[in-house]
């Protein structure tokens, strides 16, 4: 995470709250929808669409959380299919499978911590741009 306080303008209280909520809502959807990896993505999409006409700061953070969930959705979808395969479709329990689960868990954990951290910081009006996802968000969200 980088780029604290380097946003184009200082967001007001309402903007900070909405931006922070986008992270918190996705986390709530992730926890309630576990282990199905779809709900957090759907929540992020809905929140993004709901704030499509919002201010730049709000749209930017809604998009950052959406892109992060798109990436983890792909990873988690593979995990769910692979686990179902092992449990019900005769897939072998291999070291490759366990390694993938651990790697996916690490990435999910990093995203989880980053989401909480960013939710707290954006609530205070600070701008947090994540590595990889931040530059991608810049491409998709225009002022």
């Amino acid at each position, binding site marked *: 995470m980088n780029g604290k306080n380097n946003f184009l303008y200082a967001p007001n209280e309402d903007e900070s709250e909405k931006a922070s909520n986008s992270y918190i809502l996705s986390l709530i959807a992730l926890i309630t929808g576990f282990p199905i990896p779809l709900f957090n993505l759907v929540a992020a999409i809905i929140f993004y669409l709901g704030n499509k006409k919002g201010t730049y700061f709000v749209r930017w953070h809604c998009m950052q959380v959406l892109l992060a969930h798109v990436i983890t959705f792909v990873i988690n979808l593979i995990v769910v299919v692979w686990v179902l395969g092992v449990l*019900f479709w005769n897939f072998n329990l291999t*070291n490759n499978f366990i*390694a993938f689960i651990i*790697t996916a868990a690490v*990435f999910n954990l990093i995203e989880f911590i980053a989401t909480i951290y960013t939710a707290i910081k954006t609530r205070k009006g600070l701008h947090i741009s994540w590595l990889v996802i931040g530059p991608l968000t810049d491409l998709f969200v225009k002022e």
Partner: protein
Amino acid sequence: MHKAYLQLTLLMLLFVGIWQLLSKINFIEFLQIEKLTNESEKKLGQVILDSIRKDNHELNSDSVCIYVEKMKSELCKANNIPDSSISIYIFENDNVNAFTLPNSTIILYTGLIEYCKTPEELCGVIAHELAHVEHHDVMKKLTREVGSSMLLTLTGGAASGGIGKEIVKIISSTAFDRKQESEADKSAVKYMSNAGVDPENFANLLFRLSKDKNNLPKQFEWLSNHPNSKDRAEEILKFRQKINKKFENKFSESSWLKVKKIVGESFEK
């Protein structure tokens, strides 16, 4: 390439890199998963065997057991399969059926022994079931039909007798998939051939089963879990043709007649 896409590519490479590095660790051995799986399989096999024992009498004849054991030993010895790891149980039941349980156990019904005209035919069935044991087909089938969580419940001792009976029903009367059957037949031909027993006998048994099934449909359980016997017999003959070997009768005829007599008497009881 734009900086953002370059970073995304690097992230994906990082993911794959960590995954591949971690996969070098032998988690299966470290977490003793194989040991746990073997223990679960052992317990599951025992639970199912106990359930079969509740509904069937085990055949109480040393002569028959020794004869069948010898047959199994010949097959195991010729194919480098640890003989002691495979158990065979014979139950008094007029169904023409044989099947495998988890924990390398083969169940034979006296109905099948009665139906076999020659010891080589019976040897074919044992070789086929031995192949299912070696390919771990029964656990694959149970996982597919019942699910791992239910199997773990069963081995944990929390299952009722009803579930045990259901599992026996699945094992004894539902089919392996076509590929598993074909692979087991192929291995059976190899096992028989290596042991000096003509695989043609096994094909003969399957041909006869497919002809007789219309007369006595209820007794031919083995056909319900081994469908398309005629096609399989033809396939076995094809495998057989590839083997340039002359076979002689391997098993004692007088002992076989004694076995048939004892089995026949068990039906009269």
